[in-house]
């Protein structure tokens, strides 16, 4: 499997799109530093961008690479290697390329600004961990959508729908629900509901670490109040890791049963 990961990675890191992606983070983070010298403010602003952009790009990359390598996958399937190595290897290649591209783009400006000498290093690490986890989670979801749907338009369409649902609509629906049922105790419902949205979890994770209560929102506050900072972060991180593993086991399940 490591050979497939290596070549899938080698193919992707030469892709123009990935350079754009790294360049985008470099510019964005650089620009944020230009506007504000306060590291924690830069981290919060960057977080807001990451929570929107990482999932979208990872979903689209996952879908795109799966579709683009369909015919090549046939060639690999004819080799004496097990099926699951091919698909898991391809996925891990994409996800790792995206994660590294994100790490470089967001990391280099921080290193230049002297993050290692400041007290913000752990806050910054949590931001990077969240971005990397989101890259793995959403590229797996994208890869999975493309694997299930042979129709490319539908695959891309569904990827956009998933992104809209989790990154945009979810918060709105959540607030509506809270307002609607405001007479009831909703804390546990809120914790349960945020577990189903990795983007929300990542936000909670970062804000708990930064301890910015004004930005936590309802779910963040509930996590903080009921679980405390440490166990709240622990729960958020654990569920994020489950989110990263679950779609991968689905990729394995489907790839073993699919015709090519």
């Amino acid at each position, binding site marked *: 499997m490591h050979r497939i990961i290596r070549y899938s990675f080698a193919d992707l890191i030469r892709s123009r799109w990935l350079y754009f992606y790294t360049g985008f983070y470099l510019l964005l983070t650089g620009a944020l530093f230009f506007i504000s010298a306060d590291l924690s403010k830069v981290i919060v602003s960057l977080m807001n961008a990451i929570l929107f952009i990482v999932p979208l790009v990872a979903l689209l990359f996952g879908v795109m690479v799966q579709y683009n390598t369909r*015919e090549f996958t046939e060639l690999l399937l004819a080799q004496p290697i097990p099926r699951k190595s091919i698909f898991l290897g391809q996925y891990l290649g994409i996800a790792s390329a995206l994660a590294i591209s994100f790490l470089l783009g967001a990391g280099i400006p921080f290193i230049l600004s002297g993050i290692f000498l400041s007290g913000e290093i752990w806050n910054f690490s949590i931001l990077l961990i969240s971005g990397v986890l989101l890259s793995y989670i959403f590229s797996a979801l994208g890869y999975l959508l493309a694997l299930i749907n042979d129709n490319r338009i539908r695959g891309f369409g569904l990827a956009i729908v998933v992104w809209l649902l989790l990154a945009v609509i979810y918060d709105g629906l959540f607030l509506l629900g809270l307002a609607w049922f405001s007479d009831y105790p909703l804390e546990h419902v809120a914790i349960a509901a945020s577990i189903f949205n990795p983007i929300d979890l990542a936000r909670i994770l970062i804000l708990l670490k930064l301890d910015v209560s004004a930005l936590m929102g309802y779910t963040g506050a509930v996590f903080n109040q009921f679980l405390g900072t440490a166990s709240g972060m622990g729960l958020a991180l654990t569920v994020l890791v489950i989110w990263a593993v679950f779609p991968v086991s689905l990729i394995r399940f489907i790839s073993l049963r699919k*015709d090519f």
Partner: protein
Amino acid sequence: MIQLHHLEKSFGRLEVLRGIDVAFDQPGITAVLGPNGSGKSTLLKSILGMVLPSAGQITFQGKPIDQQGAYRKDISYLPQIARFPENLRVAELIRMIESFRSQPSRSAELIRHFGLESVQQSQLGHLSGGTRQKVNLVLTLMYDTPVIILDEPTAGLDPVALVKLKELIIQARSEGKILLITTHIMSLVEELADRVVFLLEGRIYFDGKPETLKERVQEPNLEKAIASLLSGGHLTPISTTRPVQAKMNGKVIHATIKS
């Protein structure tokens, strides 16, 4: 070497293979023929385990094929569509495929044979369709395997490359290999094939020497013989035995039909 027993495959409601019984045991070139959608590619892909049969069994060297795919080291397969990761270079791709098999490879010889020396460092996304097909052929033929499966090998090739491909095919036959080839070019079949398997709507309608086919429909050339097969008159599928089941008064009855 390769045996297919009652092989069936449907994609949803579409039945692509409807009970295929065939063996590829003898060295030589077998042309798998049939109109578009007759199930040729599905048949070849199921031998490689890329298509999973709905019913029936495939054995390779006496053993049922498995998902781990170790048996595929004895098969070389040329896929119908040649598309590779666009940003990899030709040499890298060849090295990658070589890394999957610990068998000796003659890629350098084939690169010379097809005149690909100058494009070795080019990215695959920049190659023309015909050049990609040549790379595809190098990847397929670089191993010394007892079975070679070629799905539309002539697609996009220029006449020079076609001649070179024929040389390689003839050489493989002389080495006692089993070759399965699908193609729509009847002159190629006429020139090379020792055996013709004719598929239509997922069943085998003819299996034998090309001369026998021509005699049966009384046509002097293969192209006309196939056309004549398709226009009806001579069409009855060769079915050997076939398991069936039926419901009678609530009970399921299993039986085997012989024809």
